[in-house]
């Protein structure tokens, strides 16, 4: 398909791609320009490509007048804890599923696949009542427990797929050299798996960092909100806080989007390695 294309053909391709690109950046462009606009010019009905009098007052307002920094910190705590716990637990379980033959092995694997079909909302009601019984509503632990429901099965599945690609002979050699089975896992297999461990962790981060639906049910006081909950508070129905909403959105979007674009190449190949061999 890489032959020489005619000039008209090329022009059409470029036009289609440009229109598609405009559509795909429209919301990002919108929040950036609204965030930079002074308060009295937020509701403009004329198109202007870039605000004429850009200002950072919306950013200073969102950081000084709201609890946005607290919300960001909450999100960071919840995301990092869930990602670490999930990856540690799934590394051991994924390794066992990849290496050992034991009763019910395929049953366990089928079960993990089946849980992928279920959205968190499905079990949110019983989980909510369990957490209520144990007094975990409105705590970090409460949300982390619910998030594990989605991250754990996926990470096990992903890491099992990766461990399958590491030749067994490496561990056998290590065991001949005097390491125990656990030692071989810890000193040989895990260091070789850092890329896929990083991908599993990144997957957890992308799942949880933006999560709204579960957090909304479990976190109830504003001090414990994660940023998506706080952001919705700011949005309202196009009132004066629209500028602050945009500034907050830019703050969370720009670093995340940049990181995603930067890592997209190896992130996507990593996902397919685990997926195809799964």
């Amino acid at each position, binding site marked *: 398909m*890489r*032959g020489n294309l005619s000039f008209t053909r090329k022009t059409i*391709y470029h036009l*289609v*791609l440009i229109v*598609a*690109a405009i559509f795909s950046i*429209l*919301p*990002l462009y*919108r*929040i950036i320009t609204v965030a930079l606009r002074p308060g009295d010019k937020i*509701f403009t*009905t004329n*198109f202007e490509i870039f605000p004429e009098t850009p200002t950072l007052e919306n950013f200073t307002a969102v950081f000084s007048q709201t609890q946005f920094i607290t919300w960001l910190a909450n999100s960071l705590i919840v995301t990092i804890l869930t990602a670490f716990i999930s990856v540690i*637990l*799934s590394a*051991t*379980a994924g*390794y*066992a*599923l990849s290496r*050992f033959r*034991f009763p019910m092995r395929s049953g*366990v694997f089928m079960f993990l696949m*089946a849980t992928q*079909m*279920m*959205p968190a*909302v*499905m*079990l*949110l*009601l*019983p*989980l*909510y*009542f369990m957490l209520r*019984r144990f007094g975990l509503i409105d705590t970090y*632990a409460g949300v982390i*427990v619910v998030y594990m429901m989605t991250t*754990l*099965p996926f990470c*096990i599945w992903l890491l099992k797929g990766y461990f399958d690609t590491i030749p067994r002979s490496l561990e056998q050699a290590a065991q001949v050299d005097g390491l125990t089975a*656990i030692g071989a896992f810890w000193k040989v297999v895990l260091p070789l798996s850092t890329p896929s461990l990083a991908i599993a962790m990144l997957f957890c981060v992308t799942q949880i960092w*933006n999560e709204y*639906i579960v957090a*909304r*049910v479990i976190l109830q006081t504003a001090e414990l909100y994660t940023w998506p909950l706080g*952001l*919705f508070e700011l949005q309202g129905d*196009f009132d004066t806080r629209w500028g602050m909403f945009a500034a907050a*959105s830019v703050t969370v*979007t720009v670093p*995340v*989007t940049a990181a*995603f*674009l930067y890592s997209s190449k190896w992130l*996507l190949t990593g996902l*397919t390695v685990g997926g195809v061999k799964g």
Partner: protein
Amino acid sequence: MAGLVLGTEALLYAALRILRVRTETRLAFLLLAPAFICIALVIIYPFFFQVRLAFSKLNLYTVQNWLATGELGWAGFDNFVNVFTSSPLQTETFWSLLVRTLLWTFINVFFHVLLGLGLAILLNQSIKGRGFYRALLIIPWAMPQVVAILAWRGEFHPEFGVINQFLGAVGLPVYNWWSDPIPVFISCCVVNIWLGIPFMMIVFLGGLQSISRSYYEAAAIDGASKWQQFRQITLPLLQPVVVPSVTLGTIWTFNNINVIYLMTGQDGGNEFADILVSALYKSAFTYSRFNFSAAFALVIFAILLLMTMVWIKISRGTESAVR
């Protein structure tokens, strides 16, 4: 949590020693245990608890009594009957929600595949700035979803949003995208299609790049047109990529709740775009119909299970046909 895991590990170890299980199997069970204790706590137990709730009388008025005494009550199959006879929301019925869910899933997956494949084919051509276009086109996937949805909600604002401004400027009729039944549903579809295209595009682009150029060269020598090459080479060789991504896309769309919940304005919003799972969420946490929602969840679960079984059957069929 950590104490529970360690304690169980010790118990399990002792039990496996006593039962004289092979060392290798013992190790496997010990490695699996921590993850599976967690899975038991967050998936298996809640599932059975859900079944119990579906037969209970737990509602907003009896919940305090349950917290105090642990009494759930027994309602028989009443809750299941209610799922099919009364509305999970205010006016929408189970059947209208089911039809809308199927429509929603079909429309979204269809456009995800169509537009994703189209853009992937364009990005696979030898044109300038491919990397740049690719980076811009995956932004909907890279952006935090909540931000993207709320920003789109702003664009659909009847007065200040860019959509109506554009429609008005070119002389087309404007709609109230926030409160008229069909426009609300269309706006949710547009936003969800926008969100899902990059995933399909990237997956298909990977598939296209793995197809060897020599096939096309050979076909061109034999005089095949571009369309014939697409039909006879691209589509069949892309099939291994298309089948899993369409499956995943169907499940994600069927279970998607973010877009609809945030676009229609949360609790106080309308229900013109609600599908089964978003209605489940609202009936449980907006209207606090606890026992009803548990039964409703089991019904949705049964639908998902049925879909999966049909899909496994179909995919096994195609697999054996290919071999």
